[in-house]
């Protein structure tokens, strides 16, 4: 195709501009060359901000603590012997999986509620429900931290109204885990809401009409029409949210800094603690790299499912 296009207009060009006859000039005039140069700014940005840091992180992870020589996978071998590391792995999984599950569930429910609102008030509600997502995260987390505060806790005040004793929200390790997940769900659910609302609207109304004539009640319509029609968007949002939630830093750092007893640490915060605060950058890099293959593999499976479904349905 490139060859054909070139031969079609190349003679005309060379006759108009006779001094452009060299081999280099010809290569420069190719469409693919022009396309390459047009993409170059983007490639540079991606290369500089994504590829280089990623490679650099891999490089860092193979250095010794003093960063003087390569030690292969010794950092990983060391991590595997540490109990804290396995605790961080499991806490990361608990944190991300629970948070994403509830974000998706709450997003789905609220999307249905908003979708059934009359068109007039819908914009207002949509706007309000989006607030948690658009607020700067560290700022809103400070608000949550304040509400969980042992002395001034708004939650404890509420519980006291019902005669329930104080809860040590952030100093009891298990309550602390609960609290950071709660904050993350609060922050992330609006993203699911917006995506699911758009997906709900894209389901053709006549499918619901056909289903109601076929004898489906509201729940059966949801199970047999809505869910299958939304399956692709659910998979993609869950994948996207899993990646972002696994990599979360702000919420944990502002609320607990990984404590108490390191029990709320997840990969990003523990990597920061090891690498920056304790000065072992290669070890920190190894921690932050650890989740990369897990997410990569799950991404491949989820995206393959999505592609298969869309081939079948559209």
């Amino acid at each position, binding site marked *: 195709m490139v060859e054909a296009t070139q031969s079609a207009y190349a003679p005309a060009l060379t006759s108009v501009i006779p001094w452009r006859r060299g081999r280099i000039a010809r290569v420069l005039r190719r469409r693919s060359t022009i396309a390459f140069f047009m993409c170059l700014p983007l490639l540079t940005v991606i290369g500089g901000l994504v590829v280089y840091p990623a490679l650099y992180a891999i490089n860092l992870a193979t250095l010794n603590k003093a960063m003087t020589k390569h030690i292969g996978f010794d950092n990983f071998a060391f991590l595997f012997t540490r109990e804290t590391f396995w605790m961080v792995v499991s806490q990361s999984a608990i944190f991300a999986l629970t948070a994403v599950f509830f974000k998706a569930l709450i997003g789905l429910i609220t999307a249905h509620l908003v979708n059934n609102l009359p068109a007039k008030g819908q914009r207002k509600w949509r706007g309000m429900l989006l607030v948690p997502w658009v607020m700067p995260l560290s700022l809103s987390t400070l608000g949550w931290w304040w509400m969980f505060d042992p002395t001034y806790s708004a939650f404890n005040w509420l519980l006291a109204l019902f005669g329930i004793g104080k809860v040590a929200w952030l100093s009891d390790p298990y309550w602390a885990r609960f609290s950071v997940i709660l904050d993350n769900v609060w922050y992330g659910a609006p993203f699911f809401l917006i995506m699911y609302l758009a997906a709900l609207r894209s389901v053709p109304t006549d499918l619901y009409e056909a289903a109601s004539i*076929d004898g489906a009640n509201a729940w059966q319509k949801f199970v047999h029409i809505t869910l299958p029609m939304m399956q692709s968007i659910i998979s993609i949002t869950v994948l996207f949210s899993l990646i972002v939630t696994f990599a979360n830093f702000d919420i944990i750092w502002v609320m607990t800094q990984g404590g108490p007893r390191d029990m709320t640490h997840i990969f990003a915060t523990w990597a920061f603690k090891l690498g920056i605060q304790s000065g072992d950058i290669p070890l920190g890099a190894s921690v932050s790299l650890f989740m990369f293959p897990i997410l990569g593999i799950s991404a491949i499976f989820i995206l393959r499912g999505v592609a298969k479904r869309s081939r079948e349905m559209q």
Partner: protein
Amino acid sequence: MAEVSLNNIIKRYGEVIAVRGINLNVADKEFVVLVGPSGCGKTTTLRMIAGLEEISEGEISIGGEVVNDVPPKDRDIAMVFQNYALYPHMTVAANMSFGLKLRRFPKAEIKARVERAAQILDITDLLERRPKQLSGGQRQRVAMGRAIVRNPKVFLFDEPLSNLDAKLRVQMRTEIKRVHQKVKTTTIYVTHDQIEAMTLADRVVVMNDGRIEQVGTPHELYHSPRTRFVAGFIGSPAMNFLPCKVERNGAGLVLNLAENLSFPMPADLSARYGKAVGKPMIFGLRPEHITEPRGGAPGEKSEFTANLDVVEPMGMETMVFFRIEGTEVCGRVEPTSAGGPGQPMRLRANLNHMHLIDPATNLAL
């Protein structure tokens, strides 16, 4: 199997009135077609029968039971939608059996019914495919299959053929008729295509502006339309309408179409149209009754010469277009006898088939 009756049905959308009082009785096993231009309320009426739209006023009953407050799923109806509305994530077999599964039919029964419907519609090979892999005509068949397996009291069709190309439409039309002859379920069918209406229906309901203009067999509607709208809507090409005057001439009547164009009216019609004398009237005559002079009635007295504007050969006949007092008139002539455009041609109007319409009421006399 059941009859459907609509009793003074009205549908309002806020200020807008879409359906203005419909009364209709559909007999058991009857095939009734609602036809009319877009926006006439025919689809809204069908959707009210299905239970997809609320009824503002009036009563609908299916099989003798008033269903105004019965949800669609409990009305025991099946509907074929304009764009098929097949579930894209299910196979053809799953699409067809969905309604039966929801109603908890035994598996063997579901299988038997799906297979039987697939046989009737000749889609047995397609059962494991998904809607995406089907052509328009095949999707249409599946949509009908989904209706048939349920064995409902009433079939509702909402413009089911309008998304198909012309050739397939004719084919599927025959198919629908064949299916109805086989399963004999009460059917209400909506279309804007009057040919579809004429070919399929036992009775046709012509609707306009939210009202029923006329209900009748295709033959009745074609040969004795009750209103100007029905006269103009049914038949293709459409009936010619010309302003005219009716004058008395001795014992008979004379139809005066233009200064130098008047015909004596046939004797039997003279008695019927006596009250039209002296009033401005609209004369209606179908194109097939304006032909080249042929042997037999009505004779030379209704012949005239026209200057042809346009000539459209159709193969087995030729349409000729000319003007009388500025109004375009269409005639259907033998291909061999048609002149060329711009040429004069001798034509004969067969007034035995004429209609007279009172422009004040738009009703046929």
